[in-house]
């Protein structure tokens, strides 16, 4: 049976929420941006009125002010967005139980089984748009397709307030002329790799021999080729957001760090990660370390541990190894991220006969309890007292 998948994407979600709450703001350039006082204040969302004036997501606040002096700048209020998002999801749930939240402003719906109740996928999409507009007060773009990939690509074609149907038949006209970068799953780096193969549009990719792509990029190459041909069999999974795949923490540093200072930051991040892993009742097997320098040159490496862990000691040890192996000590660092992936819920762990694992576990557990009761900075490592090291633990 042919599936019918919808992807609903809320247009300029954060800005739309503020416009829905305050009619005064409607029709005006609303810009939701991080704290303008801090250096990492950037534009998170701009309303369509602001977008017309050249405001883009990710732009520095200072630049946005310069381009659009009459813009209304609003600090993000996440609780509002979460509330709106869950109301939207509730409406979607009236049409089908198979709703997969994809991000705060996007969700997939599998309406294959709802057609007898609510009509064709397009009729369902129209009803959904109408209800979201009437009951929530925001508009959305909906893509309709035979699978998640084409639904997602279709939704991106018409913004704002669009409704696009993509089928395997009209895909060559709609999808293939687009630059390859637009394809879901193609990032900056893959775009460059594909350009080297003379692949510039999604159509180029679709017509490229799959075997060569597979040889060059492995399984992912094959996945990309399938995507370009509109083939995707992944199911709409209502639980996907509830399953935690990894827990990570990252921090942009106030200045360039080098050598041992980076290690201290890693230790502090590992403490935070381990604390969250333990709080969730997980054990994880893969540690990854991400580092960026001032030129945003990025390095991300991972390592699989011999045994699953939830201890900061194990996480930091693995991250140190990665640092040693892949980062030159002379290379300054501006951002550090540590994460633990390959998580699975577990209450039990094989005890060891030798070593100090039990003691470490006791220490970390005791620190967890102190932090829960007296706050996050109530207890920390002595090395964090060194100048320049602890700053971020205070403001995290």
């Amino acid at each position, binding site marked *: 049976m042919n599936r019918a998948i919808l992807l609903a994407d809320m247009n300029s979600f954060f800005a739309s929420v503020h416009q829905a709450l305050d009619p005064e703001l409607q029709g005006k350039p609303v810009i939701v941006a991080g704290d303008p006082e801090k250096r990492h204040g950037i534009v998170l969302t701009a309303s369509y009125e602001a977008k017309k004036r050249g405001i883009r997501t990710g732009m520095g606040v200072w630049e946005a002010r310069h381009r659009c002096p009459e813009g209304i700048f609003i600090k993000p209020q996440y609780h509002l967005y979460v509330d709106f998002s869950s109301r939207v999801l509730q409406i979607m749930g009236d049409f089908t139980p198979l709703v997969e939240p994809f991000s705060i402003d996007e969700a997939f719906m599998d309406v294959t089984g709802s057609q007898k109740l609510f009509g064709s996928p397009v009729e369902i999409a129209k009803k959904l748009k109408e209800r979201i507009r009437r009951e929530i007060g925001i508009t959305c773009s909906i893509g309709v397709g035979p699978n998640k990939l084409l639904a997602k690509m279709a939704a991106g074609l018409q913004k704002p307030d669009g409704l696009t149907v993509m089928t395997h038949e009209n895909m060559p006209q709609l999808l293939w002329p687009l630059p390859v970068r637009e394809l879901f799953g193609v990032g900056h780096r893959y775009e460059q790799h594909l350009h080297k193969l003379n692949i510039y549009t999604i159509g180029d990719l679709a017509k490229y021999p799959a075997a060569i792509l597979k040889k060059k990029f492995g399984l992912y190459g094959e996945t990309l080729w399938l995507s370009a041909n509109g083939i995707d069999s992944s199911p709409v999974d209502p639980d996907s957001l509830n399953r935690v795949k990894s827990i990570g923490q990252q921090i942009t540093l106030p200045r360039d760090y080098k050598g041992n200072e980076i290690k201290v930051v890693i230790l502090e991040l590992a403490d935070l990660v381990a604390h969250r892993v333990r709080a969730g009742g997980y054990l994880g097997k893969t540690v990854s370390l991400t580092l960026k320098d001032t030129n945003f040159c990025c390095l991300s490496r991972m390592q699989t541990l011999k045994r699953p862990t*939830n201890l900061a000691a194990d996480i930091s040890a693995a991250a140190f190894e990665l640092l040693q192996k892949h980062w030159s000590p002379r290379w300054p660092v501006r951002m550090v991220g540590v994460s633990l992936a390959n998580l699975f819920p577990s209450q*039990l762990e094989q*005890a060891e*006969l*030798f070593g100090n694992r039990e003691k470490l576990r006791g220490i970390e557990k005791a620190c967890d309890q102190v932090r829960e009761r007296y706050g996050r900075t109530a207890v920390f490592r002595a090395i964090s007292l060194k100048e320049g090291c602890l700053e971020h633990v205070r403001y995290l």
Partner: protein
Amino acid sequence: MKIICQKNELAAALTSLCRIIPNRTNLPILNGCLCEAREQTLTLQCTDLEITMKIIISAQVEEEGSTVVLARYLSDLVKKLPGEEVVLSWSEEDSLLDINYGASSSKLHTWRADDFPPSREKPTERKVYFQGGLWKRITRKVLSAAAQQEARINYAGVYMQFLEDSIKLAATDAYRLAVIKIPNNSGIKDCDLFIPANALIEVNRLAADGDELEIAWNEGLICFSSQNFMLSSRLINSQFPNYEKVIPEQPELTIEVDKNSLQTALERASLFISPDEHYAIASLQIDNNLLTVKAHAVDVGSLREEIALLSPVEGECNVEFNAKYLLEPLQVLDQEKVTLCFNGERGPAVYREESEDESYLHLVSPVCPVG
């Protein structure tokens, strides 16, 4: 070189030798087997530079000599040969090993025997003798606890201690520990050896129960030899963990159960592996002179078995283990009655087996709550 030997004997020897050939090597000659024909014997030798194995088989030597031939090819070829006897011949001129069987023959390329890594001199400093059967039995009992991965070198071997009046062998992989104590009749004292587990496993395959096994060693090398084989290995040069301190002195609770009942119950329990876990967890509960074994796997099902204790005990206990770790020692225990000691919810469980002059223990650490 020209010899006539029994096909089956040659095939068996080559199969053993092929086990120590490295899977990947940048020294091609390590794929070879050194064949030396002298005085009515054929000596075959392979090495991975850590372990060197020599097997001696009887042969009718018509012309002495030596050469090196690709071991895996020779082994596979010999296995498939017809008839009882094989004729191997090699001459300096064409450097090919001729394998004759009836009217047919095959040829294999060879290396010069001089190019084969020279075997290290057999240590003479210290030596002891064991009866093959005894040695195999005691090492098998401790090897069950040794780590399988070479990556964890501190755990991948058996630690042998010569004490005043006893010899102790111990092995651990950090989760379990096996120790066996036997009387020391060797006259050697205050000496300890850390022998790689894989060398011992090979020795146990080669040694015959009735033969005498000579074990000789010096600072870095150990050599096992018997009538028809010799195996030498580097000793592990790192510290074996201080294991004595993790053995609980006074157990909280000691039970006796029938080995077969416990073994079959644990075999069934070890089938219950949750999709997220990598091993089955068996929970053992002692109450009212009953041992209850429980296991459950998410989305799969659960198991509960009751085993009567062979002697009444006071007290209760409830502790969880990796089912495999509890099961494996049972395969090496000799007595039908198993003695198992418990040491609280977070303490290890200890199998103990005592006989006239031998004492064996196998300690298994539990799985504990991570929170």
